[in-house]
């Protein structure tokens, strides 16, 4: 941690300068907590706002004061400007930090704050407006001599006009919400049909997410990288670029893994991009922290994508390599101070990686939201050079109302290799129970040879996993390690279950058997194992190969730190039942095993097979959410792949389609219903 702290400047003695007395944070979750942390270091009092379901959330507990601004739905609470304005008045906050999302790029909000004489910790309304509108921002960028993508600079009226324009630009095209960001309201189309469909979805999503259904179309750059430049500008016309962040690893246009710096940029390209970013910032008289996003093609041509006039989710990696506290800088700038640094003061110290840990199922489209209560939660904070930005704790609920992000896990190292190694360790030591999470995917990405060599693009995931993510594929050696661990764990548990304390009636346990013959099942494969034990060390023989496993075998601990054949590994035991089922998280992926004595295994062959439910004729909700539309009724004939209904979860619309051509037997949902994961939606005949 020490290296990170000194690098990020968190431990730096802050100058006793006049700042705000009290700041209200108009956000929730990790970013609210992040802002409060810096405020505390600067000696600024903080006010949290929260919805009723968030009343015991971490950000509320951390803040000095908290005001409830409405019920759970965001448009009634975190987007409720009236309530937030009241909270400001009520608490006497002098400034507002908007975080990201919610009201962070809402010019109306910034205006209202200005009218009340409250500082907005972010850029001026003018810059928000100019950059918030994709069409206008592109025109300004062009004028500021920033490279831009060829496309249509206007609002598209309807689907047919979209098709016409797409034809003129040439496929593929990107249809996106004019007011959008964060991948919402964005669709790629490769032909006329997809353009029409994309237009429909994007405008619906744009309307529901931003209350603005205007769309625009531009050339879609195939196989690009997404690299962004962090800028920092003050109210005196000074601006700096704080290097880049490589954010190419995305799914559905949302970032998953980010790093700083990028392996791809050479100093010249970096400088060129930085300088263009700064010139754009200056062109809109930008102040505060902001991010200029670029698409970079394989020839290192870069094109302006958009400017985010707020603190980015992935800002911590920039903090790690530059040593700046961006929130502190934003607060200083909002107070009217000049920038403390010159461009030459901005270093690239080491390497930082960020993994976005989400409550989602990575086996479905690289991540469909999941919800639940964090029954156990433990961040890997006892590791050095690890930073976790989170706004939840053990017992917190991940609800359908808000973003399913659990935390941002950041690791830092002198080199990229060091940072990546640390990330492996951090992911293995991260305990999350009660919700499905994407650690399996994150753990795979950071060790994938293409990622490790830096050969990535925004299409990394679909290219590397064309048939969807399937979890870690075990090598023969890894398989043996896993089997051996399960067997050793089983024996350790068996031995413990024979230990009764102070019970004189238990017969002297027959001189602790030191040899076991076990049968371990993994992926329908059966393995006969011989296990012998000496103290805490187990020797497991599998197909003539020996695996040595030793550890403390604390059966109550969520983590299993082990030494397997001399290598240190941390596994997690997710499940251990009386019937021998053991689920282990190994190399990020959870594997279901079953360990049985030789006898139980041989008798198991007589057990009847249970017939699983036929899933092709039933459609279940893949995630919790609400039903936006149902396109069929009982008796309808549907074709394979035909849309049956649309489920919206966390503001993403997902079209549910028929798995086969059939007649609709019954419909179990209607538009407006709230459904849980696995709920029956429609039955086919």
């Amino acid at each position, binding site marked *: 941690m020490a290296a990170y702290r000194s690098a990020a400047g968190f431990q730096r003695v802050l100058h006793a300068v006049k700042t705000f007395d009290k700041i209200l944070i108009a956000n929730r979750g990790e970013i609210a907590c992040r802002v409060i942390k810096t405020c505390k270091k600067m000696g600024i009092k903080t006010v949290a706002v929260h919805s009723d379901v968030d*009343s*015991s959330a971490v950000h509320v507990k951390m803040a000095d004061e908290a005001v409830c601004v409405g019920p759970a739905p965001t448009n009634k609470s975190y987007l409720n400007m009236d309530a937030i304005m009241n909270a400001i008045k009520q608490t006497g906050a002098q400034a507002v930090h908007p975080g990201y999302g919610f009201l962070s790029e809402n010019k109306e909000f910034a205006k209202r704050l200005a009218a009340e004489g409250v500082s907005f910790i972010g850029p001026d309304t003018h810059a928000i407006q100019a950059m918030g509108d994709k069409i206008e921002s592109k025109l300004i960028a062009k004028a500021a001599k920033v490279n831009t993508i060829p496309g249509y600079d206007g609002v598209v009226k309807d689907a047919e006009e979209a098709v016409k324009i797409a034809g003129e630009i040439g496929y593929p095209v990107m249809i996106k919400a004019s007011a959008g960001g964060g991948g919402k309201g964005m669709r790629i189309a490769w032909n006329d049909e997809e353009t029409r469909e994309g237009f429909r979805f994007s405008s619906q999503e744009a309307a529901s997410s931003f209350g603005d259904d205007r769309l625009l179309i531009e050339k879609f750059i195939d196989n690009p990288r997404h690299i962004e430049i962090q800028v920092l500008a003050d109210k005196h016309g000074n601006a700096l670029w704080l290097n880049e962040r490589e954010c190419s690893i995305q799914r559905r246009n949302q970032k998953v893994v980010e790093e700083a710096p990028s392996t791809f940029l050479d100093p010249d390209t970096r400088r060129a991009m930085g300088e263009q970013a700064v010139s754009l910032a200056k062109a809109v008289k930008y102040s505060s922290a902001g991010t200029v996003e670029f698409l970079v093609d394989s020839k290192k041509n870069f094109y302006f994508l958009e400017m985010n006039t707020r603190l980015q989710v992935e800002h911590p990696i920039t903090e790690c390599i530059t040593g700046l506290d961006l929130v502190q800088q934003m607060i200083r700038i909002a107070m009217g101070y000049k920038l403390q640094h010159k461009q030459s003061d901005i270093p690239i110290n080491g390497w930082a990686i960020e993994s976005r840990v989400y409550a989602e199922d990575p086996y479905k489209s690289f991540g469909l939201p999941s919800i639940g209560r964090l*029954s*156990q939660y433990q961040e890997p904070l006892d590791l050095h050079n690890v930073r976790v930005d989170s706004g939840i704790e053990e017992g917190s609920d991940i609800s359908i109302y808000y973003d399913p992000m659990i935390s941002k896990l950041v690791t830092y190292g002198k080199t990229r290799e060091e940072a990546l190694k640390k990330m492996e360790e951090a992911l293995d030591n991260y305990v999350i129970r009660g919700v499905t999470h994407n650690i399996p995917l994150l753990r795979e990405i950071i060790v994938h040879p293409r990622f490790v060599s830096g050969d990535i693009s925004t299409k990394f995931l679909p290219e590397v996993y064309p048939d969807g993510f399937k979890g870690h594929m075990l090598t023969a050696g890894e398989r043996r390690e896993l089997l051996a661990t399960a067997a050793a764990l089983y024996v350790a548990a068996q031995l413990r279950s024979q230990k009764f304390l102070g019970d004189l009636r238990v017969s002297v346990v*027959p001189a602790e058997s030191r040899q076991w013959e076990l049968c371990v099942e993994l992926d329908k494969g059966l393995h006969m194992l011989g296990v012998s034990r000496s103290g805490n060390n187990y020797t497991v023989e599998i197909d003539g190969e020996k695996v040595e496993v030793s550890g403390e075998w604390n059966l109550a*601990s969520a983590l299993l730190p082990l030494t397997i054949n001399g290598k240190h590994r941390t596994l997690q035991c997710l499940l251990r039942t009386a*019937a021998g089922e053991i689920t282990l998280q190994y190399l990020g992926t959870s594997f279901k095993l079953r360990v049985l004595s030789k006898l139980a295994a041989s008798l198991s062959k*007589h057990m009847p097979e249970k017939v699983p439910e036929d899933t092709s004729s039933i459609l279940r909700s893949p995630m919790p959410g609400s039903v936006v539309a149902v396109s069929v009724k009982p008796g309808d004939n549907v074709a394979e792949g035909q849309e049956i209904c649309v489920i919206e979860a966390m503001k993403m619309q997902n079209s549910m389609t028929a798995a086969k051509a059939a007649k609709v037997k019954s419909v179990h949902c209607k538009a407006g219903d709230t459904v849980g994961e696995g709920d029956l939606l429609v039955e086919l005949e």
Partner: protein
Amino acid sequence: MATYTLMRSSLGLLHGLKCSFKSVGQIPYGAAAGAVTQVKGLQNARGYSVNHPSVQERIEKKRQAALTGGGQLRIAAQHKRGKLTARERLELLLDPDSFVEYDMFVEHRCSDFGMEADHNKYPGDSVVTGQGRINGRLVYVFSQDFTVFGGSLSGAHAQKICKIMDQAMMVGAPVIGLNDSGGARIQEGVESLAGYADIFLRNVMSSGVVPQISLIMGPCAGGAVYSPALTDFTFMVKDTSYLFITGPDVVKSVTNEDVSQEELGGAKTHTTVSGVAHRAFENDVDALLNLRDFFNFLPLSNKDPAPVTECHDPRDRLVPGLDTVVPFESTKAYDMLDIVHGIVDEREFFEIMPNYAKNIVVGFARMNGRTVGIVGNQPKVASGCLDINSSVKGARFVRFCDAFNIPIITFVDVPGFLPGTAQEYGGIIRHGAKLLYAFAEATVPKITVITRKAYGGAYDVMSSKHLRGDVNYAWPSAEVAVMGAKGAVQIIFRGKENQAEAEAEYVEKFANPFPAAVRGFVDDIIQPSTTRKRICRDLEVLASKKQTNPWKKHANIPL
């Protein structure tokens, strides 16, 4: 013996069941007899009476015959049904090489209907009995052998079971019965009925002396069902076990109902609808392995303390998640299991009747290694109210714990008893009284945690201070009151204009733990995250608790 005879004659009460004994016994036996004759015809190599072999040889032959039960064909048929044989089951249930078999040479004594023939005699008859160890601890077992006359109960069969039950009671060790029997041995007539009654009597005499567990692994019908019903726990195997008084055929002829075996008396029916069985498992192997696990929670007898196993979970572990588990709005549900899992050792909770009367949660867990019984209202189901089924479920569990020195931890979030004609007509008054009775008479350590609502009579019932709760805690979210604010205000302030104001006043006064705390009805108001730590400490203190109820022949629980 007086009681013994009395019991036998009282079997007249079961008169009405006779037809069912027959009908059930007949179906499998008819099939079995055919197959058995065939097997013997094929083997025909037995002939130990022909060459006058030595005693040693005869012993060996009999032992071999006992080990094969009904023969390979019947064993294959048993396997084909997805069931293990009686001996395979015991091998899996008990520690390796720990089984000591009794009565391997016992044979049935029937001489009617050709039963005296050599090929109709099986050493050991249709049940395997003995004692063994589960994780080193003594247990008496019987395992009915479906391959011999369909596991039907003969006089000899009953006698073997009685023998081990008598000894189990004398030495103080639990009895586990693995049931797989077509019913009475019809050829033996009243001898078989007498055998059932002998077992019933012993079930009753052992009740509260040693734990008795029944695992139903095949059919169990007619009068036979009353033995499992008298034991402390009845577990079933899904898809292959049935429990009913009368089978589908008789049901059809008497009530004209069409019903399958599974619907009438399968594992699902009894674990969700009737409440006859306490839990169901996927298959034989799964059930037996789970039974081993379950056995570790139980003391060997009422003279033994609850077992303490090695525990890796720190006794003073804080559980931060509990501070946020009770929702802000008092009308919103949460899962009581989140609390239970958070507090107990290693999140391990063996739930009893998880799918029946889900508005109350009961089961076994450990605190710092020591077995405890957990009772909790489940706000997620029917707001956690007490109704007929949940009261009976809770009462039986509490009485088991009390009988076997298992401390009881009660988590209270109860809005009251469920109102309505269905409940009143069903007798919620006398059924609710059972839970009240059970908590009141219990003398084991009783620790109570009020997590939220504790309203009305239900507050009294749920192991309150007034029923001799040893340690009673309230969380800050607790509301101990006669009823919720809305109802109370309508009575206290009837006709008052400003109901909302009155409600607010009531909430301020009563919807918190203070009224109970100032009177000493709760001992402390505690931070939820410290609950585990406190309970572990309290249990240590209460381990030496001594409390006795006045002498009585037996109490009279409102049945």
